[in-house]
């Protein structure tokens, strides 16, 4: 079984098969855009929308998509959906589109989406496609929001400080958004912090999983027996 099929046939789950924390897919937008909660939310929702739209199209046209050409079709369909999102965001949320930059257009290259399109091609029922992809998209959204919340809280001391970015052009607010731009811990905005915090989140998840596994199976795992003597070089 090829790697692509392996991932596409895993049952989607927010916790056990999270696209970011478990499969480690689509990391570049997650790491780059998670500097603030509002941009993370926007990118997560946009990715979810692109995923849903393109997977429905793929599912509806699955008899027309030739097996050997399918990746070309996936790319084209995802790019079309991304263009729709990109144009809408540029029209109504211009400040947001400047903030997201290239990463909004790069949604069509997100591996999570391409993997799910492959899975959608092999799923019979349209309803199952929609539900599965909602779960995957929601898992992606939750992860990017968690990372973004931690990074924004560390760097500026707020969560959802730049809420004003998410206000559409046609909604007029009398209250001006007061984005707190005071820098507390500016390291959290830098790319290495994204890697470190994401690593800590993954470690926490694995810790919880292993605690659960030990708790459920009642088997005491001997940690001393599995100690490695060397971690580098040839063994």
């Amino acid at each position: 079984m090829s790697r692509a099929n392996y991932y596409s046939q895993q049952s989607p789950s927010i916790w056990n098969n999270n696209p970011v924390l478990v499969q480690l897919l689509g990391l570049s937008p997650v790491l780059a855009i998670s500097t603030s909660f509002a941009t993370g939310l926007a990118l997560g929702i946009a990715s979810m929308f692109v995923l849903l739209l393109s997977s429905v199209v793929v599912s509806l046209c699955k008899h027309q998509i030739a097996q050997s050409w399918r990746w070309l079709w996936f790319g084209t369909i995802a790019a079309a959906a991304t263009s729709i999102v990109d144009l809408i965001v540029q029209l109504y949320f211009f400040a947001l589109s400047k903030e997201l930059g290239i990463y909004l257009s790069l949604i069509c290259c997100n591996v999570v989406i391409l993997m799910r399109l492959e899975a959608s091609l092999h799923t019979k029922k349209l309803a199952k496609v929609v539900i599965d992809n909602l779960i995957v998209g929601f898992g992606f959204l939750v992860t990017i929001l968690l990372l973004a919340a931690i990074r924004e809280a560390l760097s500026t001391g707020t969560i959802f400080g730049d809420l004003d970015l998410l206000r559409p052009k046609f909604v007029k607010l009398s209250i001006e958004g007061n984005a707190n731009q005071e820098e507390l811990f500016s390291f959290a905005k830098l790319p290495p912090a994204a890697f470190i915090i994401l690593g800590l989140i993954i470690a926490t998840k694995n810790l919880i999983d292993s605690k659960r596994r030990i708790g459920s199976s009642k088997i005491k795992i001997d940690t001393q027996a599995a100690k490695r003597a060397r971690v580098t070089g040839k063994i």
Partner: protein
Amino acid sequence: MTSSPQSSPFQHARHSTNNIMLMVVAACIPGISISTWYFGYGILVNVLLSIAFALSFEAAAVSLRERHIQAILADNSALVAAVLFGLAIPPGSPWWIPFLGMGFAILIAKHIYGGLGQNPFNPAMCGYLFLLLCFPLEMTSWHIPSDALSDVQEFAPISLSGLQQSLQLSFPFLNLSTFSSNELIDGLAMATPLIESKLAGTSKLLAAWQTDQSMFSRSSETAWELVNIGYFFGGCFLLLQRIISWHIPAAVIATVLTLSILFYSPGGYTIYGTPYLHLFGSATMIGAFFIATDPVSAATTSKGKLVYGMIIGLSIYSVRVWGNYLDSIAIAVLLGNFSAPLLDHFLRPRIYGHKKGVAGPAGKGSDGDLGMDS
């Protein structure tokens, strides 16, 4: 790893790890005492705070990794990292500066990579650079007791009031001192005289030197040359004890000296500074003898050490003169650490009885497999 019986020849190790690390700390003592003499208790408070935080983080990391706490704490490597870090940060730093710095250094730069012997970068310098990126203002304000600025008051920086001021700066919530906070912050904003050279053309050190001011008059302007001499003698002690080899310090100092002579334009207002300033008015000595020679993250072959030292010297001079940072030991040492594995790969020594080692994929006649077959 199997403990297969090994045949002679055996090499006698004169020092154990904890012994080596203690010697390094001992060699720092002259420099630390001179710094404290000139800049007040702030330096000492920094070092002690860093040691306390480093040991607690080390113990926490070791207990998380389920190793033997006492055995690992006894190797003193966290102690050395803490001392070097405490000397690098400005005196009068608030307590959370050593806390965050040592946390990053010990937890992320050291134990995430696998602990002592596995870390590719110098932990103390990682912690320092992390703080410099996060808190540029706090990391470049060199607070010293106000008495240290005047030449008139003898022994002022190490008086009781100086200690009070230092503690007040380190623990802002304590309200120890009767001085107002404005008075306390009134310090000399310089890490080394280099910044003076960069901004004003000539440094106070240079001015003092030119007006025949005695080196031993206790003004903080001339302190740096004595501090550097202290580290120089400490380094010579390490050389004599054969704890470090001469290659790295010699290469670093020679490169900095050569570059500063090449670019020095006497007389004119220049950003380049004199060679004397680059060697003795900055952190070059502690960098060359104590920081660049970290046995874990430095290159290990003799030729590799020379090139490694040259890379560090080149980076020190370039960042100082053409870069934005005041002093550049941390950046230079980390750049050197990046290149160290490559240097070790390509600059292998010839092993007696073999042809010259060829760097290449293992198993194609290279001698890189020697001793790696366990």
